[in-house]
C-alpha cells in the first residue's frame, strides 16, 4: 500500500523534501509509518519521539487526512489505507 506523507517545519528540513510516497505492508498503522520513517534517521526519531516511552512529543502534531491522531478512534493504532495523506509538523500553532 502507498501513502503520502507531507512534512512541515523541522521535519521538512531533516527529510530534505516537502512530501513523499511511502510504501508500507498492507494493514500497517499510523505508528508503523512513523516507526518506518524514524528508522531512516536518528535525527528524525529524536525530534519525533520522547526519549523515554516512545510516545510522540506533545508539541509534534501528526494528522491523518486532516484529523489529528488524538482524535482518531484508534489514535496511532489506526490502520492506514491506500492513498492516505499524513502530515507531520512540529511546534506550529497560533493564527
Amino acid at each position, binding site marked *: 500500500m502507498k501513502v503520502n506523507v507531507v512534512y512541515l517545519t523541522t521535519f521538512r528540513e531533516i527529510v530534505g523534501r516537502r512530501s513523499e510516497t511511502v510504501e508500507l505492508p498492507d494493514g500497517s498503522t499510523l505508528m508503523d509509518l512513523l516507526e518506518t520513517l524514524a528508522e531512516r534517521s536518528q535525527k528524525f526519531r529524536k525530534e519525533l519521539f520522547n526519549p523515554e516511552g516512545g510516545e510522540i512529543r506533545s508539541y509534534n502534531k501528526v*494528522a491523518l487526512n486532516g484529523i489529528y491522531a488524538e482524535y482518531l478512534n484508534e489514535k496511532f493504532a489506526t490502520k492506514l489505507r491506500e492513498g492516505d495523506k499524513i502530515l507531520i509538523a512540529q511546534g506550529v500553532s*497560533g*493564527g
Partner: protein
Amino acid sequence: MAFKFKGYGGKIIRVDLGREKTVSQPLSSDMAKKFLGGNGFVTKILWDEVKPGLDPFDPENRLIFAIGPLSGTGWPQAGRFEVGAKSPLTGIYGDASCCGHWASELKFAGYDAIVFQGRASKPVYLWVDDDKVELKDAKDVWGKTTSETEKILREQHGKDVQVASCGPAGENLVRFAGILHQRRAAARSGIGAVMGSKKLKAVAVHGSKDVALADPEGFYKFSREIIELYKRDKFIESRAKYGTPILVELMNEIARWPVKNFQTGYTPHAKEIGGERIREEYRIKDRASFGCWARCEKPLMVKQGPYRRIYAKQPEYESLSALGARNWIHNLDVIIYANELCDEYGMDTISTGGTISWAIECYEKGIITKEDTGGLILSWGNTETLIELINKIAKREGFGNLLAEGSLRASKKIGKGSEKYVMHVKGMEIAAQDGRAQKSMGLAHATSSRGADHLKAFPLLDEVVMNEYIVARYGREYLPEMANRLDIKHKPFEVKDGEELCALCDSLLLCKSAGTSLPLFTGAVYYPEMAKAVKLATGMNIDASGMRTIGERIVNLQRAFNIREGISRKDDTLPSRFTEEPAPEGPPKGHVVELEQLLDEYYKLRGWDKETGLIPRKKLEALDLKDVADSLEAMGKLPR
C-alpha cells in the same frame, strides 16, 4: 496628584490639534491600578471622552497611543504599543497594536500615553524629545509613504528617533487605513484614517531616561527565568525560524484556510505560498522588536522578475491569506509586492484583501459589473487587477473609492444581494480563520469588541489539539472536547477566558502573535506570573485574581462602549456562509458554526443578558464600574 508607582513614565501627553496645544499631565494612579496600560487606557479614555453617536471622523474623536508598565523594561515580548479610537470602519470601539521600538522609546521619554483630540488646520506631526513636546509642520512628509516618512523624520531628528505614521491611505480616509512603524502595522479598525482625519501625519519620539523599577534585582532575575522558558519553547523556535507564514500549509490541511472569499477552506496551491518555501527561496535574515525572542519578522529578497525587490517584508500569515488565497493568488512575488504596497500606503492587508475578494465574488455572480468597476474586469487569480485595485483604493480613485469604504459599506451602495457575500462582523472583514473548521474561532469573531477578530480571544487550545496545555490551565475534565475544534463543547468558556487573558496581554502590551503567546497557554506565563512581573516592576500589589479581574473589566467596558453605540446580541453574528452553508471539503465538511447555541452559553458565562447581550448592573458593579452602569441606565441600556 503625582503618580505613585514605578515602572511607568508617570505622565501622559494631551494634544489639542485644533488649538495647537500640548500639555503633559500626571498619569492617574487609579487608572493605572484599574486598567494597567495599553488597551486598558484606550478603553477607559474612549468611554470617558467620546460621546455616543459621534462620527469617527469628527474632530472630537480621540486617537490614543498607549504603552504599559512593562514597556521599555526588557520584559520578553513586551515591545508593543496600542492605538485606539472610535473606528471609522465599524462605528464602534476600535484599536490595533504594533511592535518595534516606538513603545520603549516613549517610555524612555517618560510617558505612558498620548491622547490626541481636535483637527489641525494644516498637516502636522508630533515631536517628543524627552520633556520637549512640539507640534511641527508636516509639509515635508504629508503625501509620503510610511517608510519615506520615517526616513525623512529620522534624517531631521536623528537616527535614534522612533516614528509611527499614517500613509497616503490614512490621509485619504480609507476606512481601513492603519498606522505603521518600522514596516510593522497597527493595522485594524481604521485608526490610520482617524489619524489622517486629524491631519496628524506622524508621532516621532526620542527618549533618554532610565526606567525606574520597584525591585530591579528581583525583576531582572524573574525576567531572565522567563526568557529561558521562552528559549526552550518549541513553538517559539518554529516561529523564530519561519514567522507566521509557517501556518499556511497546516491551516490548509485542516481546511481552515480561506479560499475565494471563504467559498472553501482548502487549496492544492497552499504550498506555493507557505512559510517553508518563503524561508528556502526568499529570506535574508531575522528581525525583532524590543525585547522579543521570537524575531518573527523576516526581511526577504525577490531575486528576479518584474517584482524584483532587494529588501521586502515577509507577508504575515494573514496577508498571505488576504492578498493571496482569498483572491486565488498563489504567486509569491506578487503577494510580497502587494503587501509592501499596503504597508507603504498604510492599509490593513486583511480588510484590503477581504474587500477585494468580496468584489470579485460579486463580479463572478454578475452583481457587480463593468459599469461599477469603471471597465475593470474582476476575476480570481488576476494579479494585475489586485495591484491596480490596491493603488486605486489607497488613492480613492474610481472603483477604488467605493472599496475604500470597506466591504460592508460598499455592499450597501451596490445592493442587489451583494450584502450576502460580505465576510464581516460589525463591519470588520474576517481574518484568516474559517469558523466552520474551528468553532471557537467562529464564536471569537462574533463576540470580539472591535468587530470580526481572532486576536481578542485568540482561542488556540483547540487549533492543533493542545491537550497538555488544557490540562495545565483548566484540568483534565475539559478533555477531550475542548481540544476538538469541531466540537462546540467548552468553546464559549475558552473564548470568554481567552478574551480576558488577551485584554490583559494588550494592557501589558505582551505580544500574542501566534507562537510567542503559547507559553502563556502552558501555564508558564499566566496570571500569577504577570502579577509578579507587574509587582516587581511597579510595586503595585495586584494578585493573580486581581489581574484576571482587570482583563474582565476591560472586556466589559469595551462592550459597554459598544452597547452605548447601539450594539446588542443581534450584532454578535456571522455571515450566513458560516452559519448556513456547510463547509464543502476536508475535515470540517458538512459543518456550520452553531452560533446561537455558542452565544447562549457565552452570555451565561459572562453574566450578560441572554436575550439582548446587555450587561446587568450587578456585573458592572462587581467590576468596579458603577459609573458605567449609571450612564447605561440613563440611556435605557441596562437589561430589564
